[in-house]
């Protein structure tokens, strides 16, 4: 278990280093508008992002070295917080949330939220359709009217209903 988690740290640190180098050499030169050459490096808009990226890369290298050193010594790290089955539930929740945002754009807040909440309640192990429907409707309309009338928040109506 310890070895496995240390390996995870190795992968993480390698990803951090590669990511930082990609930002440094590909993203920063292409996505920062540079209008002129600067007399002082600190005047350049890229100065601070470059500095921060180099720090990330250097720390990534340190993390990699430290992890390799610990792996050699055979130190054991603490257990992860979720097992595989629980992790799968989280990934399903990610997918639901991303789907919910797209659905909200298309169908509007009310319809999307009712379906989304129903799906989440089901994911959480509630199997009685009446309970799911009642809770979804009450929460959705409760939140909708609370924010509409108390905080003047107008929710998206959706492309199909505008």
């Amino acid at each position, binding site marked *: 278990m310890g070895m496995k988690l240390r390996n995870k740290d190795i992968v993480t640190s390698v990803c951090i280093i590669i990511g930082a180098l990609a*930002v440094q050499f590909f993203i920063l030169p292409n996505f920062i508008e540079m209008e002129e050459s600067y007399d002082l*490096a600190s005047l350049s808009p890229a100065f601070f992002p470059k500095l921060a990226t180099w720090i990330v890369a250097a720390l990534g290298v340190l993390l990699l070295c430290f992890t390799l050193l610990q792996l050699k010594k055979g130190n054991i790290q603490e257990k992860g917080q979720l097992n595989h089955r629980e992790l799968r539930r989280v990934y399903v929740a990610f997918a639901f949330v991303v789907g919910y945002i797209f659905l909200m754009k298309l169908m509007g807040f009310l319809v999307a939220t009712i379906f989304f909440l129903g799906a989440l309640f089901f994911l959480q192990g509630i199997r009685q359709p009446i309970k799911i429907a009642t809770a979804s409707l009450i929460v959705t309309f409760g939140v909708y009217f609370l924010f509409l009338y108390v905080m003047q928040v*107008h929710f998206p109506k959706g492309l199909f209903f505008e």
Partner: protein
Amino acid sequence: MIENLLGGLAIIFTWQHLLAIVVGSFLGLVVGTIPGLTATMAVALILPMTFDMDFVTSIMLLVGAYKGGIFGGSITAILLNTPGTPASACTVLDGYTMTQRGKGVKALKMAKYASTLADFGSDIVLIAVAAPLASIALRFGPPEISALIIFSLTVVAGVAGKSVLKGLISGAVGLLLATVGLDPIMTTRRLVFSMVELDSGISLIPLLIGLFALSEVFLQLGKISKTKADQFVIKHSSNPEDNRVSWSEFKGCLRTIFRGTVIGTGIGIIPGIGTGIASFISYGQAKRASKKPQEFGEGSIEGIAASESGNSAVVGATFIPLMTMGIPGDIITAVIMGAFLMQGFIPGPLLFEEHAHMIYAIFMGFIICDIVYFVIGSFFMKYAAYLSKVPRSFLFPIVLIFCVVGSYAIGHSIFDVGIMVFFGIVGFFMLRYGFATAPFLIAFILSPIGETAVRQSLLMSGGSLSIFVTRPIALAFLILTLLSVLGLIRSHLKGTAGGEKNNK
């Protein structure tokens, strides 16, 4: 100062401000009581609702939630063996044992007295030292501000999680992501990827709701509930002595409460350490000094006083670096700093020059908060156990909806909801891989100030780094940074060596 305090009192005593304190404290108590929901989450979710409020009202609502949330966590720690917030983890040791013996109400009352007194003590220190510290901070120029921010970020990154390196990486990524948007000096566009929405940078409120509320919701949605029904059986004694704290018991704990207040306040002033550690240190010191150390962990009322005074005293003190230097002391004050910025106020020494009455109104509000949550807490304790039984399967999906609505409400933008979800997923993986989120947020908030200060310093010196070591205050902060880094490496190596010994 007296004039400012009186001016502050005149401002705070309006029904809107008092209502904000009552509502905030109540919401904090409710959220803090529910295991899995933290005081940070309470403050992050309430923040978008303060958008239309005036400055003092919005801050009082959030401070009420902060204080109420920390105290609320101790209620379930005592009654149900489940700390509502990490700050109350230490209270479980004696609190739940007392509940099992039918003395739960006595334990709750001691927790309430200790929390209120310690919180009050910490607030007095805040009021006393804030203005003098702010006047010193006013003399800071760009090099001093740069060095101070480097020092704060190093300390926060070092102590916020289990790995110093991961904390530092987290902070450095926060610095980088904060550069998205317009450059503060040349106003050119940076890293916006042709998205107009990113011109003003990544929105802070969706980011923090995602990072602190949604990531936790994802974690809880994944967990399969293992709660046993019998955990909720609360024994109640019919003996009146078991349901009250006698004067002699209270007097016996006063020294412990005072010690906890000093420890909590001292820890709160240092950025990043937080309530949980203060509670454990206070508990450890109380046990060492006690005449009955053997009772600690076996239902000692002194143990509860130590733990609760330690964690509550942190609250007021964390505002000292925020109010005087614009450096948030922990995650919650970072979120509250977001509220300051949202209202157009930049926390720091200038606030004392330009809005002294408002700042002192907030300080007086802190003390009113202590009284309010003492009173509300008395009623609330009776029903708290029922609240913590809200089924998780309903609770977390509903909290998720509030995350979505909260991030949408700020700018009426689905793009902000996308940002919130993105950082919710990022936050989940940060938690999973042991990267503390506090350094990320604090670095993100401090980055624009830090970037401007560093670049201005280098402009002043013509690009020479010597400016940071030739000015005494900047040099002092850099030496402190070096010392704290060395201290962190030493403690880290000690911990590793300990781990090796244990493994053998």
